[in-house]
Structure formats: C-alpha cells, structure tokens
C-alpha cells in the first residue's frame, strides 16, 4: 500500500479502533437477530466515549480499553448472546 494521506494514528487510537473492529467481528458470529442489537450498543458506547472522554485522559482511556477487551472476550464466547454483558457497562456509565 502507498503512503496514506490521512493523519497518522497514535498507538492508543489504533488500539481503540482495533477493539472496535474486534467487537464488530464478534457480532458477525452472533445470530441475525442479535447482531444488529450488539452492533448498535457497541457503536453507541464507542461514540459516547469518543465524544465525552477527554482525548488526553490516557489513564482513563487505557482503563476503558482494558475493560472493553474483557467484555469482548466474554462476547466471543458462543454462550453469550451479547446484550447482558454489554448492558452492565451501559448501566454503570449512566449512574
């Protein structure tokens, strides 16, 4: 691939995008019924944090990425239909 014209991504941005990709990949493996629900929850969560978390707040972002990775591992298990695991983080945030 040639040189990209866009701004280079920081390591942390790349980690976040990779996590997002991981969630979307995991969602593909769920049922046709669950998949859109998972995708919209995940997308909302990422967009919410992208908008509300200060981009310089590295510690907190690192924490979110770590937590996200654990949730992704749970989601990947075939037993997880997804929503319950993700709802926990969703309601925690709303407190």
């Amino acid at each position, binding site marked *: *691939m040639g040189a990209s014209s866009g701004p280079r991504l920081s390591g942390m941005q*790349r980690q976040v995008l990779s996590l997002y990709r991981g969630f*979307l990949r995991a969602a593909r493996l769920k049922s046709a019924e669950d998949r859109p629900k998972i995708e919209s929850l995940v997308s909302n969560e990422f967009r919410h944090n*992208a908008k509300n978390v200060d981009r310089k707040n590295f510690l907190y972002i690192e924490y979110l990425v770590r937590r996200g990775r654990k949730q992704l591992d749970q989601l990947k298990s075939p037993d997880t239909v997804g929503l319950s695991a993700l709802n926990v983080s969703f309601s925690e945030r709303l407190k």
Partner: protein
Amino acid sequence: MAVRAALLRHVRVPLQTLNPAVTLTGPKWGPPSLRWMSSHDDHLTKNEVTDRVLSVVKCFPKVDPSTVTPDVHFQKDLGLDSLDNVEIVMALEEEFKLEIPDKEADKIDSTNLAIEYISNHPMAS
C-alpha cells in the same frame, strides 16, 4: 516465490496459448504476461471491484450517495470519523469475503485505497 521463479524458468509456454480460452483454464502460475493485464485471471476485474466498492460506500447510512466517486477520502470528503471508517472497511470485508488485518485496514481511508487493496487481493470474490 522461489518455487514460482524456479518453475517459470523451466516452463516454456508457446505463444499461441495466449488466446483467451486457454488463459481462463490455464495454470495459475502461467507466464507473468498473462496475469499482467487481467488483474486475476479467474475473477474480479478492477472495474467490478470499483463498482462494488462504490456501492458499499454509497449504502453507508451517513453517506450522501451522490458525493461518492472513485477517489473520495472517507474522512476528509465524506465527513466520516475513524469509527465510521472501521465500519466501512468491515462492510467491504463482508462484500468481498475477506479478512483485512488491522495493519492494512487502518491504512484504507479512501475509496481509491480500498479499490487498490481489494483488486490486488488474491482471495477477493
């Protein structure tokens, strides 16, 4: 690659095999000149890739289809963010039945690069 080079050095294909019927069924490791103009003998022309990439991008909910051309930049021209960019590349993966590794996926930020990557990908279908 070493194997391919060794094979090519020993295999001599007469010129008349250049007719289309043979190139379609011919061996994958045929002379480079056969592959040169037809991006991948047995599938996907660059035009087809371009059409399908454009239609995937046009179908993206946040995109105004009339603004999509073969050389738009997802973020600069279509007003998308990096998360949308991930979603578009994932949609392209599904359309062409590929898995694009993170390192490559991060670089694909325009229709142009997407078309280039996919038309050079041996597994795209």
